[in-house]
């Protein structure tokens, strides 16, 4: 048997990839992406992802965090043209290796899916076909794309399964999804997603549905795969500890917009948006003093009820009258950082308490 198409390292580089020099185009470029839906029972369209822009470089892992309903999943699905019925792309551009995926039609999407970009879903139970054996599901797409024979496919399936840390793959691959444990199902889904060796994997909370020990295993698996193959990740999670473990850069979403981005280390050390600060304060793994743990007061706005001005201002302790009107674009803070808060300095001093406690 061949020495494993997955195992073959593309290029063994350092685990942490330094930020690419500016001017070089990213692997994935998202520009002004806006997605709209109709709120339940209403006919009007409202934007649930508004004007989202970011780049992902080759080999880079980028975290995307934000409260439930902030538009993370829709952003990921829009990139791959997989929006659910009722959600539509209103504007913006998505380019993968320079090829526009939004206006390029089904052809260009079809070419990129699997081999260029793929996606791992939150719920492996619903994301796997319930009536097809998992072994077939791992290779059914790759088989066509890469022209494998039947025998080659089953060899690749075994090899992929083994590579994902599935023990006794012969037996597992002939089972159906409902016959597997949650962790195994997630490994199967990752194997299927990686069968064509994609350059970028969009991960939509791939561990949320699993219990804690299995979560750690899956995160470790993804970290290992990334080091081996230099694939890029866009990793959606609620878990800042996982971001710290897996990602170099972080973007924080609130009510459909990115409100802060920058390197993980810098944001954790000194967030420049009150919402990020709140998230960090609410996370025990990052900010270890339990006494200091505080939730963010209030709750995120409902679809179509986005407050004017900064969407976060009704919940923000730093809010002033200026926060309640006007546009709040991301402002460049230099060194790859950006924030949508107009009180960056106040936020910085509020965050100093955070560092002091640490």
């Amino acid at each position, binding site marked *: 048997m061949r020495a494993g198409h997955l195992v073959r390292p593309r290029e063994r580089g350092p685990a942490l990839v330094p930020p690419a020099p500016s001017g070089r185009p990213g692997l994935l470029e998202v520009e002004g992406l806006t997605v709209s839906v109709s709120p339940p029972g209403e006919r009007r369209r409202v934007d649930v992802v508004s004007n989202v822009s970011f780049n992902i470089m080759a080999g880079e892992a980028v975290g995307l965090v934000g409260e439930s309903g902030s538009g993370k999943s829709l952003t990921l699905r829009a990139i791959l043209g997989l929006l659910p019925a009722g959600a539509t792309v209103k504007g913006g551009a998505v380019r993968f290796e320079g090829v526009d995926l939004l206006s390029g039609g089904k052809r260009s999407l079809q070419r990129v899916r699997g081999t260029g970009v793929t996606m791992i879903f939150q719920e492996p139970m619903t994301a796997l076909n319930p009536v097809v054996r998992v072994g077939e599901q791992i290779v059914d797409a790759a088989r066509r794309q890469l022209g494998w024979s039947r025998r080659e496919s089953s060899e690749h399936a075994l090899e992929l399964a083994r590579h994902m840390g599935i023990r006794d793959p012969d037996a597992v691959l002939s089972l159906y999804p409902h016959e597997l444990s949650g962790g195994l199902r997630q490994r199967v889904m990752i194997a299927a997603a990686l069968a*064509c060796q994609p350059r970028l994997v969009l991960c939509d909370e791939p561990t949320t549905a699993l219990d804690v020990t299995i979560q750690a295993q899956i995160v470790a698996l993804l970290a290992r795969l990334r080091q081996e193959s230099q694939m890029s990740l866009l990793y959606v999670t609620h878990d800042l500890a996982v971001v710290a473990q897996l990602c170099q850069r972080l973007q924080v979403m609130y009510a459909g917009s990115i409100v802060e981005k920058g390197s993980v280390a810098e944001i954790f050390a000194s967030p420049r948006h009150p919402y990020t600060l709140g998230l960090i304060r609410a996370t025990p793994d990052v900010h270890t003093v339990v006494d200091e743990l505080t939730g963010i007061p209030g709750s995120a706005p409902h679809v179509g009820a986005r407050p004017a001005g900064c969407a976060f201002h009704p919940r923000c302790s730093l809010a002033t009258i200026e926060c309640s009107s006007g546009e709040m674009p991301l402002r460049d803070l230099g060194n790859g950082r950006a924030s949508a808060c107009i009180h960056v300095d106040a936020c910085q001093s509020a965050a100093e308490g955070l560092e002091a406690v640490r």
Partner: protein
Amino acid sequence: MLARYVARRLLLLVPVVFGVTLLLFFSIHLVPGDPARSFLGDRATPSAVAALNKAWGLDHPIPVQYWLFLDRLVHGNLGQSLFYQSSTAGLLVGRLPVTLLLLVYGAVGSVIISVPLATLAALHPGGAADHSVRVVGTVGIGMPSFWVGTCLIILFGLVVPVFPVGGYGETWPSHLWSLVLPGLTIAISVSPMLVRSLRTSLIEALGSDYVAFARAKGASPSVVLTRYGLRNAAVAAVSVLGVNIGFLVGSTVVIENVFALPGLGSLMVQSILDRDFPVVQGITLVFAVLVVLVYLLTDLAYAVLDPRVRLT
């Protein structure tokens, strides 16, 4: 496991058959009219009628007749036709293939009609194709099968004479050919229901996470449609198909008469007119068994299509 399941389901046939015989035997004797008299004609002498009744065993009290009937039944003897010079069982065996083939034609035909229509409708829900399919389906549901059959006869008998419009022919090829229009009639009456169910489950499947993930993996549209969409939609649709075919067993009575097919359905009508009790009983029994077998096959197909189903 499968064999035990089938065996147990087949055992269930026994009480069903028993119940049917009971219902049938007593209800048929409530029908007014004396078979011997109608067989011999109005001017037969009472002694001739009595002699014939005795020969046919009709002089016993009804409970005794029922007992004798059951006794013969367990020995595979459905009695002697009062009308034809033949045993009922022999008559039925000769007629059964026609009806069975007709049902198979109907089942296969309805799948051939429904899958493309449902796919067309489900690919763009609310689109022009979807609306057209729905309108055609609504019209189809409203049409009784004898009328559909008559329309097909007019169309294929007078306008485009391709298929025979009646009779069964002499050879196997002509048998198969002559069943096309009757089979189509059945298929047309089942299809609206099947299209509706397939469309709903296909839309659901195509909107599911597993289809989104299949697309994300780079699966081609045809693989997504067949191995993910239709494959999953078939699970729900097979039950709808089974229930409808089971239901249609009875409607072969109408269709075989419209197309003059020598099947069980047309024999049933004739035997009722002739007051040929043993034959009517025999056919009803066969129909009951057929319905139960169709449901059994449906359950088996369901279990084969969906590995989550446990046969117990």
